[in-house]
């Protein structure tokens, strides 16, 4: 095992299974009147976010605090980072203050790898560019398993901007390792080259793949992609790829709808679909804290002494 969680590509099936199993333990803790255990008392966790994110940062912060750790948050604006301090120097400074674990969100792919090489502290990748977002991948796996009772054998359809999506990559690694069949669907300009080598099928025609999907995972569409000419207009995207009530009607009656948030309601997904009984979007958010507790426990939980009584 390593000191870091940088991606699900390098995480084994055994480790993934362990995370999913131990998440149950933490869901029980979260159901208590006092939602707090002392497991990580005395540990210091820093969230270092170079991109704004409310839900992921807060989810990690709550996970740390509910494990009894001290959690500090560094956001880019107003810090020395904006004055041009390098990532390496920032990481060294954070380490020098006695930090045990750094949670990093960064717009550049590979930034967490650089951070991990720089420090002895544990590093969790909370999303790096278009690379990976492993805790999102884990919470998606957990939610699918919880709602469907299994992952192996399911057909998961990931719809939208695959090329720029770190969620898609983490989900693809996680789902394929756990035995699901994955199809990615979107306009060819948003499907990265040679993605089939990651073990997925590729489709440009949503209507042809909807009916066999057990899970429809809808990705957030970044509006700036349109400005870069990757698709001609929002209207045309909606016409071909939005998940609407009509499209949902073509899917299996027990199909699950998921979305990593935040949603562009009326764009990649309609309000009706997001609020339907098919939707597991709220569960994803709830499970996020528990899965992150499981990850923190795995990386930081007592490993120093021998068990004696």
């Amino acid at each position: 095992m390593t000191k870091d969680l940088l991606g699900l590509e390098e995480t084994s099936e055994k480790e993934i299974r362990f995370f999913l199993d131990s998440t149950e333990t933490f869901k029980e803790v979260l159901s208590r009147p006092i939602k707090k255990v002392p497991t990580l008392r005395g540990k210091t966790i820093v969230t270092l976010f170079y991109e704004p994110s409310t839900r992921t940062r807060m989810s990690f912060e709550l996970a740390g605090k509910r494990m009894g750790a001290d959690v500090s948050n560094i956001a880019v604006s107003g810090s020395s980072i904006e004055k041009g301090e390098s990532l390496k120097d920032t990481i060294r400074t954070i380490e020098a203050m006695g930090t045990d674990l750094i949670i990093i969100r960064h717009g550049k792919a590979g930034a967490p790898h650089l951070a991990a090489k720089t420090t002895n502290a544990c590093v969790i990748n909370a999303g790096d560019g278009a690379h990976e977002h492993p805790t999102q991948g884990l919470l998606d796996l957990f939610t699918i398993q919880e709602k469907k009772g299994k992952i192996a054998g399911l057909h998961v359809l990931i719809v939208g901007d695959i090329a720029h999506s770190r969620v898609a990559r983490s989900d693809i690694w996680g789902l394929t390792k756990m035995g699901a069949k994955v199809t990615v669907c979107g306009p060819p300009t948003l499907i990265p080259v040679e993605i089939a080598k990651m073990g997925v099928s590729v489709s440009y025609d949503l209507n042809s793949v909807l009916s066999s999907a057990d899970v429809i995972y809808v990705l957030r569409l970044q509006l700036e992609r349109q400005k870069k000419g990757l698709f001609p207009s929002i209207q045309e995207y909606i016409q071909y790829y939005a998940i609407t009530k009509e499209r949902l009607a073509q899917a299996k009656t027990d199909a699950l709808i998921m979305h990593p948030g935040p949603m562009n309601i009326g764009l990649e997904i309609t309000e009706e679909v997001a609020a339907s009984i098919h939707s597991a979007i709220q569960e994803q958010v709830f499970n996020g804290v528990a899965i992150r507790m499981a990850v923190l426990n795995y990386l930081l939980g007592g490993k120093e002494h021998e068990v004696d009584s």
Partner: protein
Amino acid sequence: MKWILKNARLFDPSRNLDIISDLLIENEKIAGIGKNLSIEGASVHDMTGKLAVPGMMDMHVHLREPGREDKETIETGCKAAAKGGFIAVACMPNTNPPLDDLSTLHYVLNKSRNAPVKVYPIACVSKGEKGEEISEMGKLAEEGAVGFSDDGKPVKTAELMRRAMEYSKMFDKVIIDHNEEETLAQGVMHEGYYSTLLGLKGIPSESETIAVARNIALAELTGGRYHAAHLSSAKSVDLIRKAKEKGVKVTAEVTIHHLLLTHESLITYDTNYKINPPLRTETDREALLKGLEDGTIDCIVSDHAPHTREEKEMEFDLAPFGISGVEILVPLLLSELITKEKLSLKRGVEALSLKPYQILGLKQPSIKENEPANLTILDLNASRIIKVSEFQSKGKNSPYDGKVVTGTPVMTVLNGERKT
């Protein structure tokens, strides 16, 4: 001063020379070749088991001076080149200011006068490398520029390239292009499976092949001489091969890195592998090697691109492109390609000792009596560990740190004088 290289294997493909012999150097010249030379007053260097070839040249290095002396200076870059087995380098003009006028040209020539390697400056194709007006090629060529390039960037437009190729015919100088269709080259690595996996923006091979095709067409149109810098893709090799068959005046180079590495190396986001053009697929690598062996690709270069540690220890997207390579090109070539019989010794030596001089219109060194004594001496059996901490170059940016190589340069002789 007289000195004798005793019992060396003398290897000069231009003369089909491959003998074990002694070699006498006197007054800057090769004064004698023969068995058991014994000259009174000459110092004797035992070269048993060593290989002497015509002095090698790296025709694509960045010396960074003037402007970025924190990355490299002419002094440190030349020391590195000499240690790397070279007696000459051609340096690219993307300095600050760019080498586009006589004052900067003279600055480089003056600064390198006493360097352990001969420095041949390449001047800008366009003033300020801006891609607008062609530089004063005539004056620059007369004062010592050996070729023209906007390297670091492509020659911006087809129109500019056409004019440059036409105009340079007056002086029979070569136009060297960093072949790149810039609108397709906005990424940081080869576009393929690994760019998809790593979530990094890719540069497709076509970014290069489109530019190579443009340049070949213009060389054909103008009759000018075009040299394709640092080829990286199989398709480009095919284009060059066909152009040569047609008789177009085109030559090409490849870096040692593109001959040894592929995009798979980037899997850990190590910025030391970040180069432009990017490392591509195994198919490309094999095609480049084949192109080098069959003569489609004329020479091997380092594209020596020193950077500071701080610059390279950045997020992958933000780190600059390039490897500090002039010191390790020859050891890697010997160790990984020639000793392992992936490239013939003849082609390896031609690619460094002969072709660069031909392309740049320089007199090529020759192992022959009464010729200037310009030699590189190699030990094909010596093993050592590459250590960036021991680099003469200021640029420690190399992915080969810690690699064990067998085969290394042991001596260079420039105009009869031992430099390393």
